[in-house]
């Protein structure tokens, strides 16, 4: 496991991107930062710009306008960047599959490392998803 990946896992800085979501999953992501599920205990911090982020949290069903910005944003991210898809919409666009404005699912646009299903996923599901991701990256 390279030095960058080891450093990456120490404490994950997270950038949250909503691409056409109904903001239930975005609120559950924000819920993780509030007192009840405080993820700052594990060093996970929400940062304001993609340049400092290790993990890109994507929610929403990638509609046409957001998809362009998503791909552009992913290119700007510093490279060992893990992408975590949260909620049914970012996994396979869930109920919006036949929608004319959501042509392609997320993993056709950017490589996704972890999927957290749920509509919306409970904050505990998000935390346990990220814990599984850390163990998987460490285990490799």
């Amino acid at each position: 496991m390279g030095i960058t990946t080891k450093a990456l896992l120490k404490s994950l800085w997270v950038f949250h991107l909503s691409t056409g979501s109904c903001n239930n999953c975005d609120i559950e992501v924000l819920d993780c930062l509030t007192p009840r599920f405080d993820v700052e205990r594990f060093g996970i911090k929400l940062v304001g710009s993609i340049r400092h982020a290790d993990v890109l949290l994507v929610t929403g069903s990638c509609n046409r306008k957001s998809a362009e910005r998503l791909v552009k944003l992913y290119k700007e991210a510093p490279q060992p960047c893990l992408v975590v898809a949260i909620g049914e919409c970012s996994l396979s666009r869930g109920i919006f599959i036949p929608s004319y404005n959501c042509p392609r699912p997320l993993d056709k646009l950017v490589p996704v490392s972890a999927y957290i299903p749920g509509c919306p996923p409970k904050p505990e599901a998000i935390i346990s998803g990220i814990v599984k991701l850390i163990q998987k990256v460490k285990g490799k």
Partner: protein
Amino acid sequence: MIKRKEVLADLQTRFKKEITDIFDKSPHRVYIDIPPSALVPMSRYIFQDLGARFNIASGVDTRSHIEILYHFTIEDINLLISLRVRLNRQKPVIASLTTVCEAANWIEREIHELLGVDFTGHPDLRRLLLSDQWPDKVYPLRRDYKEWDKGAVRDRGVK
């Protein structure tokens, strides 16, 4: 407290020539069919003099013509007036309501973009919702809308 019957009677006397049909759906709702030309004077009267609230305009593509319903709510007597306007399907054009009330600005941009109705006199009729790659003259809410994006994935996208 102006009563419901007085409002309808007043509308009928004032716009006798334009109103083609009045249909009382329920005590709180009434449909009024009018030609496109009568829209602006009538909605100005309803909005400004009767103190109604502009609710929304909903465009519908019935296969034979394009229909737009303008909904106005008069709160204190809880009456919803829906003005129904029929436009021909090939070249739907109608006067814009932004001169009457500022709230109609956005909904007309949305109907222009999704149904292809042209609103004359609208200050800035640019795109509201759809992305820039969306081809012109393709209106998603039309009945004959077909998928134009060849790369679109319409199943789970796993296989």
